[in-house]
């Protein structure tokens, strides 16, 4: 067993996914199979091999420091679930106590 149901519940919290018990159960079994399979990478990779982060490396990408048009506040807010006076309106971000 490479991953337990409790660990999956922890991952779900970190991932901001409010999962039900049945989902946790099902995902625990599936993730266990997947993690066991992908652990195969540990067979080959040894110290001294540099990591590759990008398929085709590009370095020092700059552009001229000039102004160009961007989204207006109205169009940025047009698809917001809620907005007020030119701002995104969000649920409370602090606990009450």
């Amino acid at each position: 067993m490479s991953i337990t149901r409790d660990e999956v519940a922890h991952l779900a919290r970190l991932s901001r996914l409010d999962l039900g018990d049945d989902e946790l159960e099902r995902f625990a079994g599936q993730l266990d199979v997947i993690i066991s399979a992908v652990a195969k990478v540990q067979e080959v990779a040894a110290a001294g091999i540099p990591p590759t982060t990008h398929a085709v490396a590009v370095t020092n990408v700059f552009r001229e420091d000039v102004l160009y048009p961007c989204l207006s506040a109205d169009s940025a807010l047009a698809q917001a679930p809620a907005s007020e006076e030119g701002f995104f309106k969000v649920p409370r971000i602090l606990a009450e106590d």
Partner: protein
Amino acid sequence: MNTASELTRWTAAEMAAAVAAGEVSAVELTTAHLERIARTDVQVRAFLHVARDSALAAASAVDAKRASGQPLGSLAGVPLALKDVFTTADMPTTCGSRILAGWQPPYDATIVNRLRSADVVILGKTNMDEFAMGSSTENSAFGPSHNPWDLSRVPGGSSGGSAAAVAAYQAPLGIGTDTGGSIRQPAAVCGLVGVKPTYGGSSRYGLVAFASSLDTPGPLTRTVLDAALLHEAISGHDSCDSTSLDAPVPRVVAAAKNADVAGLRIGVVAELSGDGYASGVLTRFNDAVELLESLGAKVTEVSCPHFGYALPAYYLIAPSECSSNLARFDAMRYGLRIGDDGTASAEQVMSQTRAAGFGAEVKRRIMLGTYALSSGYYDAYYGKAQQVRTLIAGDFAAAFEQVDVLVSPTTPTTAFPIGERADNPMAMYLADLCTIPCNLAGNAALSVPCGLAPEDRLPVGLQIMAPVLADDRLYRVGAAVEGALDQRRGYRFLEDASGIDESDDATGEAGR
């Protein structure tokens, strides 16, 4: 006078030439394809959104441009099916997800801008696995698309909607994205040409990100030349994408017209065959290799010893990037918001929204990526996968010292039945076994049809792989195979596709 159903069978190259010569109008072409969609999409389910009005307006603008003598774009008046992962200012963009249902982006993706500049007519947005995660379109929140060769089977994925549309003659051109095979695999199982350009050759600006170091937009078409024309139209440097390559676009159209493989060195990848491959896939693949040899290519076997580790490395790297990229769906600025009752906290609303808005595969990958990036596991999983990525790139570099291109089957099997792998994630992942190495190394690859598997009469794809920015070689080889097989057969490959019920009875359903 051409009948509407004849028009939809033309190639994109023929359509563009006919529009430029005034033999057919862009409005006629667009109308014919919209009618075809209305007749057949009740069976195929390729489109999530058909943009009838804006397509006809774009077509009228092309006709007006021609009438007034203005220069036309390279694919003027040719209709196209666009994967619903690109932002469009005049159409919704859902990525096949409930979390973005009905979302109307405020800007066009660079690919969309380039299509509009080429005077292409965008017919609508096509179905896909949610956020491009899947190999069958079964992970779409809006139901699967169906393979035009056999409606009970998947059209592949994640760009399965675009592939099904092109194979069903609903459009001659499709745009997909390829992160682990999501253009080439649907192309193979729908009997089409599909190309993953060199990473950075086609812009990601306005492409809703899945795995940023792998995502690559590219063409899905019925012929190699059509793919080349679309490839040239969408490619080239974009200052809005920091990974875009500032290099000349490979001369893919000239290469597709050249179609000469005499003297070309072709390597058969030893590791991409054997157990787990359908016998009909290997039969057709071996036939294609013999064909290339008969056309003058020098064929040798090449070993890429680390390719067996590509799939596990991919299923660590792609989920890791996905878990980070999909954090933007937080219910605050756009998309779905659930549970905002005035008392729930932002964090509770976020967690409830994501649980309700994402499907099972997306949740699995977010959690898998979160796991692989966690302290304590990072070095053992994500770190090792990045080292494997270096080894795969090294295998390619060594192989391309010996040969000009590599070949393999595109997929281990032909199209599988809808539902067969839906509850078995690992079985689904194996569909991308042969295509993933090129995503990890960033080099270019193309799938071209190489016949029907004898056991099920379903299409098989030949994958051709070329070095970074040598995309033109793909088209030389692809066009040679396509030309020789078309000549031997006496008609185009896709004419054998007969899954769609073309009778008037079947099409009556569209009105229900």
